[in-house]
C-alpha cells in the first residue's frame, strides 16, 4: 500500500507495539481465546497494518467502481444510483397461493419476484406421480403444466417485473412455460427480464435436484445459452450458485472457488458449443451466501468480482466489459438460523444482509426468522423484507460506494481469499475441470469434511451459537408457523388430470415425439420444448421423454 521505506517503518512500529504496549497488557490479562478464527476456521490476527499489504497496487487490485477489475463494485454509481433489488424467494401451496404472496410482496415494496418450486417440480415429476406423495406444495409452489404457470403470474405483467426462478434439472422446461405465459400476455421474449438458476453443476455438488447425467445436462444448458443470445437477450441464463454449496457445509474459502470453477465450466461449454463468449457471458450471473462471519463475507464478494474479471479477460479473452462483470444475488444463510429463540434470527439476518450490501450485491433475499421451523408466514416474510429496507433507508450503508475498501483488514482478507480460491481452482483445472472433479466426488467430499469439522467445533463449544450452545433458555416463546393445507395435493392432482383430459392429446404426443427426436440430434431443444409446453404437455411428461433418451442421475451416496 505504501512504498518500501514507509512500509518497513510501520512494520518496525508494529513489532515494537506488540512487544511493549500490547505485551504489557497481555501479561496482565491474556486474550479471551488461544486462537481467533472465522466461521470458516481461517485464523484472524489481532491488528492489520499497511505493511501487511506489501506490494498492494491500488490501480491493479481495486481501481474504481464500474471499472476493471471491479473490486469496488460493478456499477459506477452503485446504490447512489439505484438500490439493490429486494427479491424475496417465495412459493408454497398452489399457484393461486403463491400468486397472492407475490402480489402481497410487490405491494410491500419488493422490487422483483423470486419463485420457489416444490420438490416434485424441481425433480421433474408431476403432482400425481407416486414420487410426489406428501410433497405437493410443501416446500414451494406446485407447477405441473402451463396452466399452473398462467395462474402463478396472473395479473402480474411480465414486461414490468423481473422474475427469478430457482429451477435447475428442469430449467429449460419451466423457462419454456414462462416464455409461453409471456406470449399469452402479449409480451415478446425480447422484453422478458429475469433469471433461471439453471446451474446443474452445483446440483451434483450440493443442492441435489437433478434429473439427467452431467453431459446431457450441460448440453441443455448450452442450448439455453444459444437460444437466449438470439431470442431472450435480457434474460440471465445461469445463476452460478455458491449459496447451496455453502449451505451444504462448505467454508467461504470453498464456496468461492467451487462457484467460480462451475462458471469456468459453463463458459468453456458455451464456447465449445460454438456460441461466441461475448454473446452469452454478459448474461451469466452469480448467487452467493451471506453467512455469519461479517468481514469474511465482505472479502468473499470483493474477491469474487476481481477473480471473475481476471478470468474472463485473461483466460477467456472476452472483449466486452459486460463479460468481465460479476453481478450477483445474495441470500442470507438459512443454515445459521436457529430453532431455539427464533426471534434472534432477525438479528442474524440483519448482520448477514449488511455484509451483502457492503460487499456490493445486486439483489438480496433476507431469510425469515421462522425458516428453521417451516416456510415463512406472511408476518415473518414482512419483517425480513423490512430488514433490507432499514439497511437501505436508515443505516447509511448505501450512501458511499464500497465503504470498507482500503481497510487494512478487509483488503488483506480479500487478497487471502482470492489466493486460496485460486489454489482450489488450479487443483480443479488439474483434474480436468469441474465436471471431472464432480465425477471423482472431489467437491462433494471437501464439503462433507468441512461440514463435519464445523459441527465438531460447535459441539465442542469452540464455535458459539447463541441459544444453541450458549445463552440457552428453558422456555422459548413459540412463534406461529405456516401450515400447508393438505387439500392442496388433492386439488393439484385434480387440476393436472383435468388439463390432460382437455388438451389435444394427439398434438401433445406428436410434440413429445419431436422433442425426443431433437434430443437425439444436435438441434437446439428450446424451440421443441416450447412447442410441447404450449400444448400443455406436463412437466413430468416432458422430463420422462428426455429421461428415456438422456438417462438419469442417481446419488453416489458417499458420506
Amino acid at each position, binding site marked *: 500500500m505504501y512504498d518500501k521505506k514507509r512500509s518497513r517503518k510501520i512494520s518496525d512500529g508494529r513489532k515494537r507495539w506488540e512487544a511493549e504496549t500490547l505485551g504489557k497488557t497481555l501479561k496482565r490479562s491474556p486474550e479471551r481465546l488461544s486462537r481467533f478464527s472465522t466461521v470458516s476456521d481461517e485464523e484472524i490476527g489481532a491488528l492489520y497494518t499497511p505493511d501487511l499489504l506489501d506490494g498492494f497496487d491500488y490501480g491493479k487490485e481495486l481501481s474504481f467502481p464500474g471499472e476493471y477489475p471491479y473490486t469496488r463494485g460493478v456499477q459506477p454509481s452503485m446504490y447512489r444510483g439505484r438500490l439493490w433489488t429486494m427479491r424475496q424467494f417465495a412459493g408454497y401451496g398452489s399457484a393461486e397461493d403463491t400468486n397472492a404472496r407475490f402480489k402481497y410482496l410487490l405491494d410491500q415494496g419488493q422490487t422483483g419476484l423470486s419463485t420457489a418450486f416444490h*420438490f*416434485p417440480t*424441481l*425433480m421433474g*415429476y408431476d403432482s400425481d406421480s*407416486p*414420487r*410426489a*406423495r*406428501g*410433497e405437493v406444495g*410443501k*416446500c414451494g409452489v406446485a407447477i405441473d403444466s402451463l396452466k399452473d404457470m398462467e395462474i402463478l403470474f396472473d395479473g402480474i405483467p411480465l414486461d414490468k417485473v423481473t422474475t427469478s426462478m430457482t429451477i435447475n434439472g428442469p430449467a429449460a422446461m419451466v423457462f419454456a412455460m414462462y416464455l409461453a405465459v409471456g406470449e399469452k400476455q402479449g409480451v415478446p421474449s425480447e422484453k422478458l427480464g429475469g433469471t433461471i438458476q439453471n446451474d446443474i453443476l452445483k*446440483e451434483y455438488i450440493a*443442492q*441435489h*435436484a437433478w434429473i439427467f447425467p452431467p453431459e446431457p445436462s450441460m448440453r441443455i444448458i448450452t442450448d439455453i445459452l444459444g437460444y437466449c443470445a438470439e431470442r431472450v437477450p435480457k434474460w440471465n441464463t445461469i445463476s452460478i450458485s455458491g449459496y447451496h454449496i455453502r*449451505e*451444504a*457445509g462448505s467454508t467461504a474459502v470453498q464456496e468461492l472457488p467451487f462457484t467460480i470453477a462451475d462458471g469456468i465450466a459453463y463458459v468453456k461449454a458455451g464456447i465449445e458449443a460454438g456460441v461466441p463468449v461475448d454473446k452469452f457471458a454478459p448474461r451469466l450471473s452469480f448467487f452467493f451466501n451471506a453467512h455469519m462471519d461479517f468481514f469474511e463475507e465482505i472479502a468473499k464478494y470483493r474477491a469474487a468480482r476481481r477473480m471473475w474479471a481476471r478470468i474472463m479477460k485473461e483466460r477467456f479473452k472476452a472483449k466486452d466489459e459486460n463479460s468481465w462483470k460479476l453481478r450477483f444475488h445474495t441470500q442470507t444463510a438459512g*443454515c445459521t438460523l*436457529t*430453532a*431455539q429463540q427464533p426471534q434472534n434470527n432477525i438479528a442474524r439476518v440483519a448482520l448477514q444482509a449488511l455484509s451483502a450490501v457492503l460487499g456490493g450485491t445486486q439483489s438480496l433475499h433476507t431469510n425469515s426468522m421462522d425458516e*428453521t*421451523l*417451516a*416456510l415463512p408466514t406472511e408476518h415473518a416474510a414482512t419483517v425480513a423484507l423490512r430488514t433490507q429496507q432499514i439497511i437501505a433507508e436508515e443505516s447509511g450503508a448505501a450512501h458511499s460506494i464500497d465503504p470498507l475498501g482500503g481497510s487494512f483488514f478487509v483488503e488483506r482478507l480479500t487478497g487471502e481469499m482470492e489466493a486460496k480460491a485460486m489454489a482450489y481452482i488450479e487443483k480443479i483445472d488439474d483434474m480436468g475441470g469441474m465436471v471431472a472433479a464432480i465425477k471423482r*466426488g472431489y467437491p462433494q*467430499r471437501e464439503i*462433507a469434511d468441512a*461440514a*463435519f469439522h464445523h*459441527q*465438531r467445533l*460447535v*459441539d465442542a463449544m469452540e464455535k458459539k*451459537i447463541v441459544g*444453541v*450452545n450458549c445463552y440457552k433458555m428453558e422456555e422459548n416463546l*413459540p412463534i406461529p*408457523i405456516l401450515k*400447508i393445507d393438505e387439500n392442496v395435493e388433492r386439488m393439484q392432482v385434480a387440476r393436472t388430470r383435468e388439463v390432460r383430459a382437455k388438451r389435444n392429446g394427439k398434438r401433445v404426443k406428436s410434440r413429445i415425439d419431436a422433442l425426443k427426436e431433437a434430443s437425439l440430434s444436435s438441434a437446439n431443444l428450446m424451440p421443441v420444448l416450447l412447442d410441447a409446453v404450449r400444448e400443455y404437455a406436463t412437466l413430468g411428461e416432458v422430463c420422462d421423454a428426455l429421461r428415456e433418451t438422456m438417462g438419469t442421475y*442417481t*446419488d*453416489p*451416496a*458417499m*458420506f
Partner: protein
Amino acid sequence: MASAAAGSQAAGKSRKPDRKVRILIGKPGLDGHDRGAKIIARALRDAGFEIIYTGLHQTPEMIVNAAAQEDVDGIGLSILSGAHNYLLPRIVSMLKEKKMGDVVVFGGGIIPDEDIPKLRKKGVDRVFTPGTTLQEIVAYVKERVRPRK
C-alpha cells in the same frame, strides 16, 4: 468414500452376538438436504456402528428394502421437505408388514414440534430437531438400538 451396501446379506441367522449394531441412514422424499444425514452417518460410524447410507431421493419401498437386505437394527431418517407426516409413518408400517417392526426408527430434520407426538404415536421412536448435538444422537442410538434377535 464410504458407501452403501457394505457386506453381509445373511438374514440374521448365523450372527455372532457381539456383532456391530447396524444402522441405516435414509433420506426419504425428494429434498436434497443431506448435510445432516451425512454428518450423523459419520458420527455414528466413528462411534463404532456399522452404517449404511441410502443416498438421496428414496421412496419408502427403497428404504424398507434396503433395511431388509442389509438386516439393520435401526433406521435414522432425515427429512427436510415437509413430507414427514406421510413418509415416516409409511416406512414404519411397511416395516411392520415385513415383520421388521422391532427395527428402531428415529428421525430428524425440519419437523414442527406439534407434529412430533403424532409421529411418535405412529411408531417413530424419537424425532431430533435442529440444534441437537452429535453426542446426544450417538448416546440415544447406543442406549436404544440393540442387535435384533
